[in-house]
């Protein structure tokens, strides 16, 4: 009983946009292309978090830790070992998924709040290592000037690589969320007890979701290295984890592309406001509290709600409100 796979208009639009973006470096300036790259990488990270929080209902409080693990693994493999750079970039996501498996299997034994608190604790341990292990990570300064393969060393090549990788990741995430596994995940989010009662191994599904999400966070980490050619400890800082939450909230939980939209807005806003005032975090805080009060479902959440409303007004049976699937 698999749902029929037809391409929805939204998917077609996304596909078209994705293909069109490949031509961005031809028309846009260097800085605009760079910003697009930042948005894509950050958006991928936010979407991987939403996979767990929006669809999985897990309190993944320290997602940035896995982003950092991915980025640092890639950076260290390239700079400290003789491995080819591509292997280093591929090692990033794998290391992040491994960290996700280890930390996840510790967290998964506990319910929501404890899960989040332990994750913040363990993630902060990784941050401390990145910050203090000078001989390996260069501490506060981070690692700069990471040599990349020639094909992706320039801004154009880096952008194409990021766009291609993010596209593939989004496709994979979309398939995962539309699969029976994704449906089970949302069922667990909505009612874990009932899922356990009908024989679903709740923890194993959640752990699998963590590994998948941290893998994508690791991809984002590797892509960060491609984009910036550097890594620094702040990537693993808990404040950044919560910033990713803001992106998901802004774009809309429970929607597929919401976090990408949220990331785009936050990145652009930061560039804009950061150029005008040193009090960017104040602005971010006000935006966040405004969102919580006035737009808790995010920007794409409104569209979803409108669609539901229209469908209901037309007399069609409405799907369950929070059971909204990907796409």
């Amino acid at each position, binding site marked *: 009983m698999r749902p029929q796979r037809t391409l929805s208009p939204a998917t077609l639009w996304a596909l078209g946009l994705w293909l069109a973006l490949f031509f961005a470096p031809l028309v846009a300036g260097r800085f605009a292309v760079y910003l697009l790259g930042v948005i894509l990488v950050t958006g991928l990270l936010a979407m991987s978090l939403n996979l767990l*929080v929006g669809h999985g209902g897990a*309190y993944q409080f320290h997602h940035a830790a896995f982003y950092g693990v991915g980025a640092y693994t890639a950076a260290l493999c390239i700079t400290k070992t003789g491995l080819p750079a591509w292997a280093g970039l591929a090692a990033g996501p794998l290391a992040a998924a491994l960290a996700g498996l280890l930390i996840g299997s*510790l967290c998964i*034994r*506990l319910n*929501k*709040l*404890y899960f*989040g*608190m*332990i994750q*913040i*604790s*363990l993630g*902060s*341990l990784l941050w*401390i*290592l990145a910050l*203090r*292990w*000078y001989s390996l990570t260069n501490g506060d300064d981070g690692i700069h000037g990471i040599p990349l393969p020639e094909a992706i060393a320039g801004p154009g090549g880096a952008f194409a690589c990021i766009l291609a990788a993010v596209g593939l990741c989004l496709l994979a995430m979309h398939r995962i969320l539309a699969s029976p596994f994704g449906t089970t995940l949302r069922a667990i989010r909505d009612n874990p007890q009932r899922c356990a009662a009908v024989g679903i191994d709740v923890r194993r599904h959640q752990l699998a979701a963590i590994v998948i999400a941290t893998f994508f966070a690791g991809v984002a980490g590797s892509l960060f290295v491609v984009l910036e050619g550097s890594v620094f400890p702040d990537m693993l*800082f*808990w*404040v950044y984890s*919560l910033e990713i*939450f*803001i992106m998901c*909230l802004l774009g809309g939980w429970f929607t597929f592309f919401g976090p990408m939209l949220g990331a785009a807005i936050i990145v652009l806003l930061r560039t804009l406001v950061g150029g005008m005032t*040193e*009090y960017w*975090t*104040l602005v*971010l*805080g*006000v935006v*966040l*509290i405004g969102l*919580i*009060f006035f737009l*808790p479902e995010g920007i794409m959440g409104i569209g979803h709600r409108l669609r539901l409303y229209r469908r209901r007004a037309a007399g069609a049976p409405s799907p369950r409100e929070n059971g909204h699937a990907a796409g």
Partner: protein
Amino acid sequence: METALSLSSALSQLLVGLSRAMILFIVASGLSFILGVLRVPNVAHGSLYMIGAFAAHTIATTLGGHPAGFWLAMLGAPLIVGGISLAAERLLFRHLYEREHLMLLLFTFGLALILGDLTKMVWGADYRSIVPPPFLQGSLDVLGTALPRYNLFLLLVGPAVAVALWLVSTKTRFGRIARAAAVDREMVGALGIHVSWVFAWAFVLGCVLAGLGGALVSPTISVTLGMDHTIIIEAFLIVTIGGLGNIWGALVGSLLFGVTQSLGVLLLPQFAIVFPYLAVVVILTLKPTGLLRSVW
């Protein structure tokens, strides 16, 4: 002679660790209290601690180094922090109690972002420090080791706060109601108790402790921006290993954290900060719900 020296350095290092643990405990117990009653990890807790330290500095320097200035600072800074938290709670936070926990957490994060930048606006990025009153300056000679008086003073304040908080939460009407509201707020409301105000005062009490911690720490470290980010992670860790909402757990966690770090300095100075984190990992691996039971 050499062993005596290392013994004395170990002793003074231990005292540093213990007094650091007392500060951590005062902050973490406030976090734990809020977590117990409201079920929200208050991310703004670190910012309130920082504001407490800055406010203490302002009060103490306004009085021009008079010894009374120190005590007024210890009293006034927590009150200022309490006022800020009461305003935030009544104006904004209370409208969110019906929402998901994630929203409450994100709200406190938004508050932390705003308070952090407001602190920067008001006090700037300078390093500051305040001077304790004369009888807390200098050091006492114990077993041939010079122990700073102020650190010994902190060793008295920490347990006093622990006992006071324990008395408030178990022996007073407010404490009982707060604990009941944590378990079943609807039932408590049905009994005619204004749950919203119970939550407000619980939040304020926890935040006042953050302010007190900030005020007390200000003579021992340089007060500066960014001190909010480190303390909040340490307080989170302590609360997690101690058992959420358990005051004594917060005490045990703080001692463990402070002492492993200060003794770690003797072993591997550069990685001293890693030791408490490692201790946390070991404890959570063995006992994921923390050392002591959550009492709520």
